[in-house]
């Protein structure tokens, strides 16, 4: 996996409770271990990251500000991968 994205994700996991308190339900754009944008949904966050924040595709992550694990976790019950 992309090393930079891994670092951004680790930063998100470390601070997710704080993000959830401050921006519950919003979508965050994280780049260089910093929240650089807060939006209503993932599509708006993505479009803004490219057109307003002028970030390079693949250099940022979009994550939901939520302490609910289902927002950043995925479970496969039926298939072995």
């Amino acid at each position, binding site marked *: 996996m992309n090393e930079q994205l891994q670092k951004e*994700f680790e930063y998100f996991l470390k601070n997710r409770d704080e993000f959830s308190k401050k921006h519950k339900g919003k979508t965050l754009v994280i780049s260089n271990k910093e929240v650089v944008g807060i939006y209503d949904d993932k*599509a708006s966050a*993505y479009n803004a990251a490219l057109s307003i924040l002028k970030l390079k595709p693949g250099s940022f*992550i979009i994550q939901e500000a939520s302490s609910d694990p289902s927002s*950043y976790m995925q*479970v*496969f019950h*039926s*298939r072995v*991968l």
Partner: protein
Amino acid sequence: MEQRALTIRSKNGRLPVLQTKACVAPIGFSGNPDSLQELNAIWDTGATNTAMDAGIAKKLKLIPTGVRQVHTASGILDTETYLVDIFFKLNKVAIRNMEVTAVKLGNADMLIGMDIITMGDFAITNADGRTTMSFRTPSMKLIDFVPESNLHNMKLTKRLRQKTSSPTKNAQVSRKKKKKKRK
């Protein structure tokens, strides 16, 4: 809001897997979905989210937009996610702005998970021994087989009771039938 639906039905017998053709493009796709590569997508109620094979994502040159922790029987791993539009060629159903996870899939290109399935109504029936799966979005109506089954069983019980509770009446009817036959 416009409603979209798709149905798959086996030609004969029951389907062991619910599989449809799907196409994937980066979000905001405004071209003709017919120009996109067709993928084999399995409808999987055991997957919380929609996923696609990591190799296919690479081949389609999708750019990662996030990361997810994926829990499988073999452990937990962090994997990239992509924001995409998904098109089902059956009846031109389009699901826009979906986040899909890149995973290693052996027997399919894609898994349609509960995030898509719960966007609408989803039913599997096996009338006449033929499996039919139907999906529509947005959700329009509750489907519950229990009231229909209860009513069916109530009628069945009533009929059985009528037969068993009046043996004399039944005997009279059969005697009358025998008389008619003799005539």
